[in-house]
Structure formats: C-alpha cells, structure tokens
C-alpha cells in the first residue's frame, strides 16, 4: 500500500514523469472535470445559487407582499402558468409564473427567498456538523486516550432529547445573539449552531470507526515508524482515506439541515412566520396537496435537486481526491 494522498503521479503513470511537475490541486481539478456527474451537479448547484440570490433582483414581486382590497380575491390561489396547457380555464397568469399562495403572495418570489435561507442554513449547518463530527471522530479514533471521553460525550449528545434542548438554547441565547447579530443574523447563527451541534454524532461515530481500522494499516505504521508527527499522519494519511463516508454524510446532512430548519421555524424557534424557507413552504402546503400540487412539488423538487447536485459533486470530489482513481 502506498501513501495515498502524496503526489503519486510518477508511480502510476511513468510517462507523466517527464513533464514539468504539476500541482496536486491541478490534478484534482482535471480529474473532477472528467467526472460528468460531478460537473453537471456543480453546474446545477451554481445555477440554483444564482437563481435564488440574483433572481430576486430582476423579479418584480416581493415575497412578503400581500395584496389588499379588490386585488386580494383576484390574486389569491393562482395556479402556475403551465396548468393552462391542460386546463385553459384555470386561474393563471404570466405575471405570476408559479402562481400565488392562499393569501396572494407570489410563489416564485417565495421560492427564491426561501432558497436563500434554506441553502445558506443548509450549507452552513452541514459544514459545521461535518467539521465537528470529523474532528471528534478523528481524535477519538486516532488517540486512544481521547476515545473513551469523546465517545461518551457522543453518547450523551445522541441521548439528549432535541426539543427541550432547543427550548433551552433559545431561552439562553436568543436575546444575546439578537443583540450581537441583529434579528435575522442572530436567528441564523442560532439555527446553524443548533442544527450543527445536534447532528454531528453520526459522522463522528462513522469517522472514528474508519480511523480505528485505518491506523492499523501498513502505510500508517510505516509513516509512524519513520517518525512522522501525529498531526501530519492525520492530515495527510488518515483524513483523505475517510473522505468518502464524510462526503456521504455531507449530502445527507444538507437534506437534514434544510428539513430541521423548517421544523424549528414551524415550532417557532426559527425565522419569523412570514419568512419563507423551502422546508416551511413544503410543510405549509401539505394540507392542500391535492388542490394545489405545485405548492408541494416545487419546494420538494428544489430540496431534492440541491441534495442530488451536492451528492454528485461529492462523488466527483471523492474520486478526484483519490489518487488510486485519479490516474485512470
């Protein structure tokens, strides 16, 4: 077994050795580009990002605007324009391409605004949970003395009931965070932290399990025998080899974070009630699923596509970072 993450292009492809040396990240990027799924995933992900962040600048409707007076009856419960294809009599209009909700707010505007929240919360919370999980998992798996305490801590976190924990956190931290980051900023920090610190345990357990096996492998023993410091062994030898379960955790984590955020907001621990997020849009529309299928379809689709895109990016990244695959 060779040391996996070192620039091993020479050993795998001798003809490359004559070329000028290339940086490792260049190799990674080249490999990533070759991965069709990853590229498509990345393009879709960037498009979704652009749509929800740039879209509102060009879109005429405000997500929180409720029409009043006569307009209200005219504008509420509008169907998306494509319904006209099979139902020419439907209440639909190009001014609201995805229709409106039951109190006349534009659905597309709400989807975009909701996307901003869901994407940032999802990514940030996922990153935090991943960071915590990987850090604790690697420490516990690699250093035997830390294993006991860290894993018992994990047990504790796994056992804590989520809802009372949230109640306490909101009680203790909402006002100070609001003072420090403003109303929405404070809630954002609170939600990301809450989702992050309540979802890292699975990643930690999985990473630890893999590290326990890896650290007995020959290449780690070899590195240790030549006196490589622990920090270096962890960073260069262990981490790259536990990347694939981490990537899976990342894709699953982003979905969980988006849904958990909506649960928090729904319970009243999150963003104000007129602040749309994908999870909440989905949740609010379940009762009217048969009458207005588009109201569940679009947010559901948005979450699924985002998760799929992240999944393929993760696949590509993993392949690109794995030198055994990269050469081929």
């Amino acid at each position, binding site marked *: 077994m060779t040391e996996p993450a070192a620039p091993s292009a020479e050993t795998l492809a001798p003809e490359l050795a004559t070329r000028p040396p290339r940086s490792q990240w260049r190799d990674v990027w080249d490999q990533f580009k070759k991965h069709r799924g990853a590229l498509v995933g990345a393009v879709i992900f960037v498009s979704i990002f652009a749509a929800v962040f740039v879209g509102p600048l060009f879109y005429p409707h405000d997500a929180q605007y409720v029409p009043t007076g006569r307009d209200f009856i005219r504008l509420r419960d509008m169907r998306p324009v494509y319904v006209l294809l099979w139902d020419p009599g439907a209440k639909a209009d190009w001014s609201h391409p995805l229709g409106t909700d039951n109190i006349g707010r534009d659905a597309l505007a709400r989807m975009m605004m909701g996307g901003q929240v869901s994407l940032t919360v999802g990514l940030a919370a996922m990153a935090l949970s991943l960071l915590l999980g990987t850090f604790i998992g690697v420490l516990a798996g690699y250093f035997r003395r830390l294993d006991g305490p860290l894993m018992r801590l994990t047990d504790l976190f796994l056992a804590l009931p989520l809802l009372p924990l949230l109640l306490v956190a909101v009680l203790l931290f909402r006002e100070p965070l609001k003072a420090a980051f403003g109303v929405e900023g404070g809630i954002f920090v609170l939600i990301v932290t809450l989702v992050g610190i309540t979802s890292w345990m699975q990643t930690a357990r999985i990473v630890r399990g893999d590290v*326990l096996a890896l650290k007995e492998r020959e290449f780690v023993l070899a590195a240790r025998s030549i006196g490589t410091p622990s920090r270096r062994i962890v960073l260069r030898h262990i981490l790259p080899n536990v990347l694939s379960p981490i990537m899976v955790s990342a894709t699953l984590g982003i979905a969980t974070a988006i849904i958990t955020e909506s649960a928090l907001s729904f319970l009243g621990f999150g963003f104000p009630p007129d602040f749309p997020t994908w999870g909440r849009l989905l949740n609010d529309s379940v009762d009217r699923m048969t009458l207005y299928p588009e109201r569940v379809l679009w947010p559901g689709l948005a979450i699924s596509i985002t998760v799929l895109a992240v999944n*393929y990016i993760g696949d590509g990244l993993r392949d690109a970072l794995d030198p055994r695959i990269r050469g081929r």
Partner: protein
Amino acid sequence: MLNYTIRRLILAVPTLLFIALTIFLLLELAPGDPVAHMPLTIPPEVRELMRKALGLGEPVHIRFWKWLVQFFWVEPQVFIDWLTTKSAIAGILPDTQFYVSCAGGDLATCDARILSWQFRSPVMDIVLQRLPQTLWVVGTAYLVAIVIAIPVGVYSAYRQYSWFDNAGTFITMVGFSVPPFFSGVLVIVIFSVQLGWFPSIYDTTHRVTDWDSFVFQLRQMVMPVMVLALQITSQISRFMRASMLDNLNQDYVRTARAKGMTEPTVVLVHVLRNSMIPVVTVIALGIPSIFGGAIITEQVFKVNGIGEMLIKAIEANDIPTVQTLTFIFAVLIVVFNLIADLLYGILDPRIRYD
C-alpha cells in the same frame, strides 16, 4: 476483548448516571408547564394547586433522587413481581410481592412508581403498552431497509455509474430529501383516499390470531413501513456504496483476483467484510431508534408508539415520562455503540482496544 467489554460496561454506569442528570437538568431548565395544555378557562390558582399535586413544589435535587429511586429500585421490583406471577415463566419461580402499591395503602411505606403527569399512571406500563406497535412498524422498516440497502449498495458500487447505480442514486437521494411529513401524507392520499387499498389510521388494538388478521396487520403496516424504510434504505445504501467503492480499488482485491478467486467470493466475502464498518456504525446508531420510534411517521399514520409518546410528553411537559423514555433510549445507545465497537474488532481483527 472480554476485558475491554467489562471495562466499558463498568464505565457505562457513571456515564449513564451523568446522562440522566444532564437530561433532568435540561428538562428542568427548559421553559414549560405541565398544565399548559389545559383550557384557558382554568384559573391560575387552580393551576398552581394542580402543579403542587404533581409534586412540582419540591426542589430539583429531591425530585431527581426520587426519580432515581423509582427507576432503579421500585420499577425493577414491579418487573420481578410480574415475572414471577404473570409472565410465561411464572410457574418456575416462586411468587414474589416486593412492590407495595399506594392505592389504599399507607402513603409513608408504599412504593411510588414513576407516574406520568399526563396519565397519572405508571410510565413503564404505558411504555410496555406502546412497544408492540413500535417494534412491528419501525422494526420491520429497519429489517426491510437493511435487506434492501446492502445488496443495492454493493451492486451500485460494483457497477459504478451504470444505469442501476444512477437510478439508485436518484431514488435514494430523493427518498432522503423528502421528509416523512410530506411522503407520509402523499402515500395516504394515493393509497387510502384515491385507491382505498390500505387503512390510513393504524389500529393499535388489533391482535394477530389467524391468517386474516395477519393480512390486516400487513395491510395497515404497509404504508408506514414504506415511508420509514425509504429513508433508512437511502441512508444505509449510500454508506454501503461509498465504503465498497473505497475497498474495491484496494490492493488486496487485486491480489485475491490474481489468486484466482471467483468474483462473488472476492466481492461478497473480502470486500463486503472490509466495507461493513461504517454500515455497522449506522445500523448500531439506528437500532435504539427502533425502540425510540419514528416520531413523525408514527404521528402521520396514528401508530401511537413510543415516538408519539415521547413527543406528546415533551409537548405536555410531562417530565417523568420524557426523563424515563430518554433514559431508556440512552441505555440502548450506550449498549449498541458498545456492540458496534465489538463488531469492529470482529470485522477487522487489526482493530485493538487494549
């Protein structure tokens, strides 16, 4: 290994006590009121009397101590009495009567069990009442999920980027990103309302006695099991696939093939065994949740198992119930994580804990 197991089991006691204390303090700190769900027409003075009657007037440490005594001393007595008088093995054991009920007895000497604030009845009785439906539904879902997920994960990895793999990826990812509060209602609308195939409301009092009642049990389980299994399958098959992919490129696989081993032997014996560590972790983390129930799915289908009991108890601020359920849950987590750790050693003998 035995040494390690014993050490871990001994260590589990202080760990669990610490967890119990943390949960208790957390519940204590959380804002909430057991009489919050009562109608507003009940005036504050009466509410205060009701809280007193629940024992809320006493200081925290006394209440924690009482709970400990009830959980570790009184409840086992009840269990032993049940074992010797009513259970299947009652005939073998001499009848015992450790537990002294307070109904009609002397309040000073009788044993107080853990009483729920919502039901005013022993929490453990309700747990036992709720367990069958949770095990039926969530347990079956887990079994189904594991049986599906492992082959799917293995095959997806073996034929990476084939149409099977891509379809699998699509289904599992959509399956995981659609929350059960939506997918549950969706299957109800399709299969109960439109097609009328399955009941939308689970009958917890149903007993399986013959073939027909078994079929009915299956029919009422189909939808909740389907929704739950989709989520669990997605998760396990992703980890299975990723881990298989890692191992399929290893040198030992090439060696095994070079030695002339058949492809099934290589994949299903060597690679699979080495890929099981993350999957075992995920399953071990999931098994306690079989007992813990699936909160949302149980609510959507009215399965009313342990998950539903927990969430209702949290909403009603029924601290004795929440404390007891979470603690049982903690015990299972500690135990199954230990089992997972022992399994690591079996799967990969190089892993040593001593």
